[in-house]
């Protein structure tokens, strides 16, 4: 058994890790941290279990927030919408969940399922479908495994609820997004209902503890502990590709989605230039027009002095940062990954590049 518990103290490390795995997007997890801390203080610690600890037929339901981070800053969760979305899907399926699981360990959605699990008195499964942030529901390892996102439910804080049956995961994304625009852009979603057996076979394992551990490693770096930076790079198998200063930030809205381009100049004074293409998350990093990090690998920007992970919304002219390439979860390396979450999936005519080992 690999049962461990998450208490209010773990939330800080998870929050740092979640910002890093947000890879520039995913929404600032600060609000989610407050929600999770309050839920754990009210309802007590949450058990973290592996899918293999559960009965293979046991029902596991996911929960996440869906909407716009800018709106969530104002329309802070009620808490009840998450429980409602899980209960609605559970009622539709006609069985009770044995555990809650995050769908996206990266950004806001890392911590909210912990609050929901605390409130419902259920354990949380130490796994997810992304282990980073992605903008769309179908961008999971579950899609690669042929697991449908539907039936799924969307709920708001007032009691409005919808349950959808969808023919494919792209349609699940379209329908959910349409509902959310009508429901105030800060809603709860429960999708990819699975059994513990399906999760054991197809999910990214241990992602919550990975996130916490990565957060702790980065906190050691932030405290300037001896050797912490090298340990962080070694244990995440990451590489620092650039130390630069943001000299240009071009934000624009195309196809409805926010895209931007970041230009960084080398801090050491050479003529090397890094360009990062961003759509919600950091997707492609070039050095002198040569791609060096591509999605689904993670492009993480850290403040040069404090080593705080930086979200795209917080970046401004003159920011000095480290740019780190971090390999995506190994579970992503299977057929179909490039079409689903590679550069081409975001409209870039580019082959993915491999990170140095």
């Amino acid at each position, binding site marked *: 058994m690999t049962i461990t518990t998450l208490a209010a103290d773990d939330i800080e490390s998870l929050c740092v890790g979640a910002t890093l795995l947000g890879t520039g997007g995913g929404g600032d997890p600060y609000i989610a941290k407050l929600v999770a801390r309050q839920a754990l203080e009210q309802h007590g610690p949450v058990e973290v279990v592996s899918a293999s600890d559960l009965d293979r037929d046991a029902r596991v339901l996911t929960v996440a927030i*869906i909407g*716009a981070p800018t709106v969530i800053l104002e*329309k*802070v969760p009620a808490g009840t919408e998450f429980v409602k979305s899980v209960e609605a899907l559970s009622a539709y399926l006609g069985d009770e969940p044995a555990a809650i699981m995050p769908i996206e360990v990266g950004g806001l959605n890392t911590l909210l399922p912990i609050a929901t699990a605390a409130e419902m008195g259920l354990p949380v499964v130490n796994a997810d479908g992304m282990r980073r942030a992605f903008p769309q529901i179908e961008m999971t390892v579950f899609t690669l495994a042929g697991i449908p996102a539907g039936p799924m439910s969307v709920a708001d804080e007032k009691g409005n609820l919808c349950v959808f049956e969808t023919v494919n995961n792209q349609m699940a994304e379209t329908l959910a997004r349409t509902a959310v625009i009508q429901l105030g852009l800060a809603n709860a979603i429960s999708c990819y209902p699975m059994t513990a057996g399906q999760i054991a076979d197809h999910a990214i394992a241990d992602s919550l503890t990975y996130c916490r551990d990565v957060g702790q490693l980065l906190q050691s770096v932030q405290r300037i502990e001896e050797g912490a930076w090298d340990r962080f790079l070694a244990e995440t198998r990451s590489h620092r590709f650039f130390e630069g200063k943001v000299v240009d930030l071009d934000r624009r809205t195309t196809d*409805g989605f926010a895209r931007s381009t970041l230009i960084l100049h080398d801090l050491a004074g050479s003529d090397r230039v890094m360009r990062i293409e961003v759509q919600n998350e950091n997707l492609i990093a070039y050095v002198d027009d040569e791609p060096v990090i591509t999605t689904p690998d993670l492009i993480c920007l850290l403040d040069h002095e404090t080593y705080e992970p930086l979200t795209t919304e*917080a970046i401004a002219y003159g920011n000095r940062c480290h740019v780190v390439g971090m390999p995506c979860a190994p579970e992503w390396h299977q057929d179909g990954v490039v079409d689903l979450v590679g550069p081409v999936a975001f409209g870039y005519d580019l082959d993915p590049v491999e990170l140095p080992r």
Partner: protein
Amino acid sequence: MTDERPHRIGIDVGGTNTDAVLIGDEGSVVASVKVATTTDPLDGIRAALDGVLEGQDRSRIGRAMLGTTHPANAIIQRRGLDRVGVLRLAAPSSLAVDCSAAWPQDLRDVVLGPTAIVEGGNEYTGAEIAPLDEDGIRRLAAEVAAAGCPAIAVSAAFSPASPEHELRAAEVIAAEVGQALAVSLSHQVGALGLIERENATILNAALLSTSSAVVDGFRSALAHHELDVQAYLTQNDGTLMTAEEAERHPVLTLASGPTNSMRGACALAGVDDAIVIDVGGTSADAGILVDGFLRESTAAVEVGGVRTNFRMPDIISMGLGGGTIVRTEDGGLRIGPDSVGYAVSTEARCVGGDTLTLSDVSLAIGRLEGFGDPALVADLGADLLTEATGWVDAQVAGLADRMKSSRDEVPLLAVGGGAHLVAERVDGISEVIRPGHHGVANAYGAGIAEASGSVDKVYSYDVDGRDESLDRAKADAVDAAVRSGAERDGVRITNVVEIPMTYVPGGGCRVVVKAVGPLR
């Protein structure tokens, strides 16, 4: 009418000194004075006015501007803060985060009175989340008043765009308890981000007594000197609020100290774009001015341990000052980060003290004049001086480089008592300027300040178009600047930030615009 009285008085009430400066035609410094800050700020302001007005023609003085760190110090020292009620209009949303969720325990104990989250607030579209729960508001108002709290902080979801529920809540509170409670409304003090704005509003309400004391002191000092002038205070970005507005919104003045100092230094030097390094006895602060305003930080700002969403000046500090201690150990040098601070005038080697400081190094290599006796540092070896000077120059160049946003060379202004540490040549810097009167740059920065207005709203580019949305935001910001006292014809847009909303199609974009203009 004020055109006939173009002269201004700038006053800065700092933790240690109260400075005043009389500004004459075309920004000239007619007189300046520095006195000790007093427990009751009124006495220091009076003394400073005594000094600066002596023998001057008062008939041409039309305005007086005050910058103060008094409210900031009250929060840092947890002193003079009122206990206040907290009302949030957002239910059923936001119930997962209590009003006190982000507060450190010690400040929570001092500041937070009864709290309630009641139904109300708006969606991003402007629609109501729920009809306003006026009974709930009355119940909390009565409870807060009964608890003896003098003020209440009211925050509604999306109030920066839709302030109606907050305004209505203020009416309901007044009808219930009369003048017993002062009311702070969040849309008047903060930007988007409910929790951070609520925190700022609570701090604002807790500071109302402190701000009243400062503003009363300012007004009675002006009256004492028979100055019939318009009174203003400076806010975080270096622009002005009327004294009446400042009394109600003290939290907007928290960062005015460093802002006034750096803007004042640039104005004294006659430049709009420059890096400013303010070197004191213990530490150096660096900031960068673009078009006369300090670049602001995008990071969340903690005030006394509470997260807020003010735009604060982007200032970096480091342990580099005139009193920084230089030690010889293991054949090498260890410089700082500790310092003898203001005691440099008695403890430094060059004034007969025992401690080797960076001021001694400056004197020995000829950067410092008019302080100490060169004979007392004549024994310092060439190697030591070269190494120490190299270290200082690298720190200054590093600070300047961290502030720069491009490779272009910009001027560097060196101010403060330790400005002698800054060499005449700095890497990446076009020229080093040492403006005159920089000892009162703070008060001068307050005295030259202008009026401003701003807008922070979410627009739909798909529905309204980008150009039209931006035009509307700019027009609203100009109107807001005019409402704060700016001359309409002189108002210019100083800042436009567009932050597209991520994860939703539809062209939603948060737009932040600031407009600034001279007082009419």
